[in-house]
């Protein structure tokens, strides 16, 4: 854990891990109030050195992931799930320290659920569904994120990034046959070739070289891999500065996002407050234009502001500072995430503003999109153009995220007098005029639909009047899970996302039929190619025997939610996005959609 009394530099064009404040050195000394450490101790891991010949690792690797943060770990877990061995390179000796991403979205939880890691997040994380915004001393917005009894997961959970990484690490450590983590190992050069990549690595015990067929660069906002390839992020860097303070405070206040605009405790500023597990609270406050950055992060200047905030909030317990750093928002992305044999993900590919919590969450979605595609290419199940669709889909997602993130940032840190003036108008009117309140809503991250993906099989003439369109993720809905041979007693209640297999899944909305000849034929073809294709019958009611070969829509919500008439089929990709859907499926249409995704190389560049 870093110790220093020098202020952290202000991140600029390729700033901090997004969804997070600066990962730079925090201020850790105070004359007036003692700093305390985070209530977490990271295990220290040694640098393993593999068997070498002439300084080169004897075995090459199909995939090397550079960066052991949430995105790198999620990518590794995803590849392992698809039976691809992966080497993970991490410069540090353990999971991260300090204040970074703290909000994990429902979509990210769904991804972690598939990777077998969600339980840890739900055990430790603090779930929340909404928040309050105040203008001066008046509450002007009480917002709620979409949430109802059909959901499997809360819209958001708060937990520190060290917890996020620790949970993913523990999941990865259960699969050492696939995941090989090289701690304290830093990439010092990268030589990209047509057939792979040669990496030079340094460790405390010496340097070595390693060949990878594919490299995933998940090495963060200041990505060495990105710099080495001469690539630059493009977009907007905002001038507004926020001080990020983590404190330890004993409070039973509920978990919600609190935003104070022009509060009595800090007039002219904007303050955000988030509760984290184990008594850690994140406080972000905006600096005025005339405030000096270096002075602003000195404990002598930070502590009084925190004290007056807590007093305003009515928090009387003693508190201790844990972390102070400075943040400036960026909204930047690469134009393409695939560069030959190197694929960029997370902050290495794009930097999102913290407002709206799209940093870590968009990176986790990158990892989920990339893992199955790269695994299928490595295993020879799909052509390389599938990897271009990773770039197509996730660059489009980044642009959508950046657009929302920019709007959040323009409200939280107005970039001109005009945004500032209009915000004052909105806040002053909001208490009495509900019509303008939506402008205060923090526009939190939500699942992205790949509307223009070249993988989508367009809806046919037998259109659906509801349900997730091609490119969308599945809406949540409880159902009775199919009986398995080990089941005894009461049927198990689960959710529609629990039906997804490791490969493609066909949700077959049916009556009492035992099998679908159409889907049986598709499944047989896919089996010949070695591609997992699971057919899950979804029925309106349990069979008379009480046992059922499929899932049962016991709430009656699922069929209408999916706009499914009896016989309809949704084919879902390994990452949970809909590939295509048919009210009257035929072998040719479904097989063509799958072939288009996996076999042929004609889809490259279909989306710009």
């Amino acid at each position, binding site marked *: 854990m870093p110790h220093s009394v020098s202020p952290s530099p202000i991140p600029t064009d390729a700033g901090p891990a997004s969804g997070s404040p600066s990962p730079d050195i925090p201020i850790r000394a105070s004359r007036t109030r003692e700093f305390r450490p985070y209530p977490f101790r990271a295990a220290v891991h040694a640098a393993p050195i593999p068997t070498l010949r002439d300084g080169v690792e004897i075995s090459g690797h199909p995939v090397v992931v550079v960066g052991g943060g949430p995105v790198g770990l999620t990518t590794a877990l995803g590849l392992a799930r698809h039976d691809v061995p992966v080497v993970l390179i991490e410069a540090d000796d353990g999971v991260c320290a300090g204040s970074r991403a703290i909000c994990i979205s429902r979509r990210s939880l769904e991804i972690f659920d598939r990777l077998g890691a969600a339980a840890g997040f739900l055990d430790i994380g603090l779930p929340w569904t909404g928040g309050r915004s105040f203008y001066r001393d008046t509450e002007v917005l009480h917002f709620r994120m979409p949430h109802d009894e059909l959901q499997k997961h809360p819209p958001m959970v708060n937990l520190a990034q060290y917890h996020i990484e620790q949970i993913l690490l523990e999941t990865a450590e259960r699969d050492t046959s696939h995941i090989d983590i090289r701690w304290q190992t830093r990439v010092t050069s990268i030589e990209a070739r047509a057939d792979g990549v040669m990496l030079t690595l340094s460790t405390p015990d010496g340097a070595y070289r390693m060949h990878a067929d594919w490299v995933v660069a998940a090495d963060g906002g200041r990505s060495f891999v990105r710099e080495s390839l001469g690539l630059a992020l493009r977009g907007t860097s905002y001038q507004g500065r926020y001080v990020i303070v983590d404190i330890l405070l004993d409070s039973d206040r509920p978990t919600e996002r609190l935003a104070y605009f022009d509060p009595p405790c800090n007039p002219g500023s904007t303050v955000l407050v988030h509760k984290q597990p184990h008594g850690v609270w994140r406080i972000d406050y905006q600096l005025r234009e005339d405030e000096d950055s270096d002075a602003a992060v000195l404990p002598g200047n930070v502590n009084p502001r925190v004290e007056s905030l807590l007093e305003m909030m009515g928090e009387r317990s003693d508190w201790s500072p844990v972390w102070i750093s400075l943040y400036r928002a960026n909204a930047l992305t690469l134009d393409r995430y695939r560069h030959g044999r190197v694929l960029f993900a997370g902050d290495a590919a794009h930097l999102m503003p913290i407002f709206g919590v799209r940093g870590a969450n968009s990176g986790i979605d990158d990892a989920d999109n990339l893992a199955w595609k790269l695994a299928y290419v490595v295993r020879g199940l799909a052509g390389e153009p599938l990897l271009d669709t990773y770039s197509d889909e996730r660059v489009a997602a980044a642009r959508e995220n950046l657009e929302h993130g920019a*709007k959040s940032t*323009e409200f939280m840190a107005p*970039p*001109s*007098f*005009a*945004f500032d*003036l*209009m915000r004052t108008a*909105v806040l*002053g*009117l909001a208490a*009495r*005029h509900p*019509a303008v309140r*939506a*402008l205060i*809503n923090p*526009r939190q991250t939500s699942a992205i639909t790949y509307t223009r993906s070249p993988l989508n099989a367009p809806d046919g003439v037998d259109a659906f009047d509801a349900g997730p369109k091609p490119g969308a993720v599945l809406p949540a809905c409880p159902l009775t899970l199919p009986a398995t041979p080990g089941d005894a007693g009461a049927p198990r209640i689960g959710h529609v996302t629990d039906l997804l297999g490791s490969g493609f899944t066909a949700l077959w909305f049916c009556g009492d039929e035992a099998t679908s000849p159409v889907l049986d034929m598709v499944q047989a073809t896919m089996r010949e190619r070695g591609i997992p294709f699971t057919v899950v019958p979804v029925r309106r009611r349990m069979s008379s025997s009480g046992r059922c070969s499929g899932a049962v829509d016991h709430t009656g919500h699922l069929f209408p939610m999916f706009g499914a008439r009896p016989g309809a089929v949704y084919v879902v990709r390994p990452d949970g996005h809909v590939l295509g859907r048919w009210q009257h499926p035929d072998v040719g249409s479904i097989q063509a959609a799958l072939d288009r995704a996996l076999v042929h190389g004609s889809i490259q560049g279909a989306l710009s």
Partner: protein
Amino acid sequence: MTDGELDAIYTRLCQVMTTLGEPAATLFLARFALLAIAHIDDSQAARRLIDDAAEALPPAAHD
């Protein structure tokens, strides 16, 4: 108007005002108000909006 459309219009207004610059902002907003009044075409509604917009704003001090 959806929330998204309101959002987009709000951003557009801010951007245009930013481009015009602070000295022109008051005149720009005055012109926008006149055009909006003409478009609303309802004197009572416009009168109410004027009162709502002025509510809670401190009056200027006059000698």
